[in-house]
């Protein structure tokens, strides 16, 4: 199941070059900047990879106004079907260029003609017209997306059809248009996109489901989604179907699961009505999926798994903050210790292949352990403290999170601190005290405080290992000095 991806896109190993090399690093920086400015727009383009016939050559030319008109006329009025289809193919290739797209939308009646061809009774003409629309949907200009407005009611209508390739094309086109223009979204909602997607999600075709997940994920990322879109999605049958697509088992398709996991993430982090999702069993489905992912990670070199792991971790972490997580009796719905085992297997995987995702994994670990003596005990009984400490050198962010998880354990009292002592913890703390990052040091001080409180024997060893000198380095630091002083006092009195 995991070893062979179906569907169009297959991820490869995220090469170290993305963060390590010069050019890829520039790309990474630019994307991060775009994300911060909320302009990170992802669009899929189903470009026909099959070599074109008739020796047209690989590079399509930009089309001028006359040529666009000519192709449209030929498509609409040609006598031979092959000729009409060919005209649309030529138009489609030209539309790969932004200039041609602009020319097309400025031409009066062009969209009407294209919509006429889209709704024609000639199937192959219809398909080519849809491909032209798809090219237009890839434009980064919202004016081009808005020029496609007359077509949307038909794209939605065709979602209830039976031709899976055509439906897939319509879905990707819709997804692209959704991303580009609020005007498009404002029209699609009253046109019934949510019920249309809810009907379409019952398709047995994997490619259709992946496309639907994509379109839905774009809809959910809209700025106005929490107020205007997510409530109607939650009121539909979509959430149950989405969760079904995420259930581990022979029917789980990785490409489909990735899309719906991201959809769920966008819904959950918008915090519209997470208890509803918990009621649908989201926690247990995602927990089981996490186990499945950990199993897969051990078996295969397929590095694409992090694309699914990331949103699953996010969903679980955010859901765990909901009060509804507590069932009658105050027990957490998610109690299976295997979740902790799975998480550490994933952390190891991230450590080796995708260090940038370590914080996300540790976030889940924090949320699992914060209010759960059971999970804290699991970390101790499964000998996971040492592996956790091995993550300290990765980065400051990771260090703070590791230390926070350790504080979650230590704050539960002497029974827990006894299990943290003796061991690698104190040497590790002495090491982090040498960091210059204030937050790392601050969290180390918190942990030291708990350790001294619940395991006083640690104080002596701390002193013997030059602990006081380690503390002194930070006496002048405003954010740290009170705590440094308090610890110094404790150490000296102990």
């Amino acid at each position, binding site marked *: 199941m995991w070893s062979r991806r179906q569907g169009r896109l297959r991820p490869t190993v995220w090469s170290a070059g*993305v963060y390590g090399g010069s050019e890829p690093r520039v790309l990474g920086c630019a*994307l991060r900047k775009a*994300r911060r400015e909320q302009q*990170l727009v992802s669009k899929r383009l189903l470009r026909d990879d099959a070599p074109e016939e008739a020796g047209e050559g690989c590079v399509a030319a930009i089309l001028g106004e006359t040529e666009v008109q000519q192709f449209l006329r030929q498509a609409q009025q040609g006598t031979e079907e092959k000729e009409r289809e060919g005209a649309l193919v030529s138009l489609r290739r030209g539309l790969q260029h932004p200039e041609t797209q602009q020319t097309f939308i400025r031409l009066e009646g062009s969209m009407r003609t294209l919509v006429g061809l889209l709704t024609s009774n000639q*199937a192959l003409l219809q398909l080519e017209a849809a491909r032209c629309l798809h090219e237009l949907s890839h434009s980064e200009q919202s004016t081009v997306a808005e020029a496609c407005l007359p077509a949307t009611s038909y794209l939605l*209508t065709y979602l209830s*059809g039976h031709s899976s390739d055509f439906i897939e094309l319509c879905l990707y086109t819709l997804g692209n248009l959704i991303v580009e223009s609020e005007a498009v979204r404002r029209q699609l909602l009253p046109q019934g996109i949510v019920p249309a997607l809810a009907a379409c999600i019952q398709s047995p075709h994997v490619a259709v489901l992946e496309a639907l997940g994509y379109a839905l994920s774009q809809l959910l990322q809209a700025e106005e989604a929490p107020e205007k879109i997510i409530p109607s999605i939650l009121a539909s049958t979509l959430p149950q179907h989405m969760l079904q697509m995420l259930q581990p088992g022979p029917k789980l398709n990785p490409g489909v699961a*990735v899309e719906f996991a991201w959809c769920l993430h966008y819904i959950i982090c918008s915090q519209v009505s997470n208890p509803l999702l918990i009621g649908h069993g989201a926690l247990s489905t995602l927990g089981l999926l996490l186990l499945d992912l950990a199993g897969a990670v051990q078996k295969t070199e397929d590095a694409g798994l992090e694309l699914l792991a990331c949103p699953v971790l996010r969903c679980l972490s955010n859901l765990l903050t909901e009060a509804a997580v507590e069932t009658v009796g105050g027990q957490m719905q998610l109690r*299976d210790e295997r979740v902790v085992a799975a998480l550490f297997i994933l952390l190891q995987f991230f450590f080796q292949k995708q260090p940038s995702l370590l914080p996300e994994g540790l976030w889940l670990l924090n949320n699992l352990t914060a209010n759960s003596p*059971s999970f804290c005990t699991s970390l101790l009984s499964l000998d996971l403290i040492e592996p956790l400490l091995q993550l300290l050198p990765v980065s400051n962010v990771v260090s703070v999170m590791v230390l926070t998880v350790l504080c979650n354990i230590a704050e539960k009292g002497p029974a827990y601190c006894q299990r943290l002592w003796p061991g690698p913890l104190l040497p590790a703390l002495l090491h982090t005290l040498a960091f210059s990052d204030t937050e790392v040091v601050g969290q180390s001080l918190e942990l030291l405080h708990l350790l001294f409180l619940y395991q006083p024997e640690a104080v002596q060893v701390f002193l013997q290992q030059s602990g006081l000198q380690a503390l002194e380095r930070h006496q002048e630091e405003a954010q740290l000095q009170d705590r440094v002083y308090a610890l110094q006092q404790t150490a000296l009195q102990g």
Partner: protein
Amino acid sequence: MQLPPALCARLAAGPGAAEPLPVERDPAAGAAPFHFVARPVRFPREHQFFEDGDVQRHLYLQDVIMQVADVPEKPRVPAFACQVAGCCQVFDALDDYEHHYHTLHGNVCSFCKRAFPSGHLLDAHILEWHDSLFQILSERQDMYQCLVEGCTEKFKTSRDRKDHMVRMHLYPADFRFDKPKKSRSPASAEAPGDSGERSEGEAMEICSEPVAASPAPAGERRICRHRSVSELFLKPVLNMCSVLRILGCTWAAALLILNSER
């Protein structure tokens, strides 16, 4: 990062929760200047924490990190014709045939052979065009269902329904799949020689949509088609509704004549 060897075994074993060690907190733990409190953390949508993962998702969608995607070429087969009676469209690729079949022979009205893009629209068509009971009931109650999936509104006339779809659902006023039933015009005939192609809804509108530069030539007429009254009589199955329609037309015509004579 070294994991204990027993961890994989734990994952493979059955579910279970650890019996928690006793919790015993000292109030001094949270006393100033220390302020640690164990709490789950929540990150909202746009939080910077998600930056790295979001960039990665973006790149996935942009195909940057994909391997060469060997999308299989459309498998070509020796040319074959569509097997549906009356259709002699020829294909050399199975995908093309699949799409043709679903578009033209999929949701087809068994009464009038019109093809529709979905079962939903076909059902509405059959009800409104071929169900005599519908006609009778629609005189007394709102029967014209909104065509938008998920909308349960019903209307007295197809005109009212269209107004609703335009106003509430922002549908185009000339939505191709919502043509009102018109009275038959004997003048327009079925275009000859169009092997098995059927209109969707009613007439194909292509011929009436001008492209900016050129007028529609005469040859285009073959795409437009209307059912002729004579053709109705030639159909082997002449359903009740058609009879009523014809009678209704005749009756309405008679009424008009009577009224004008007063």
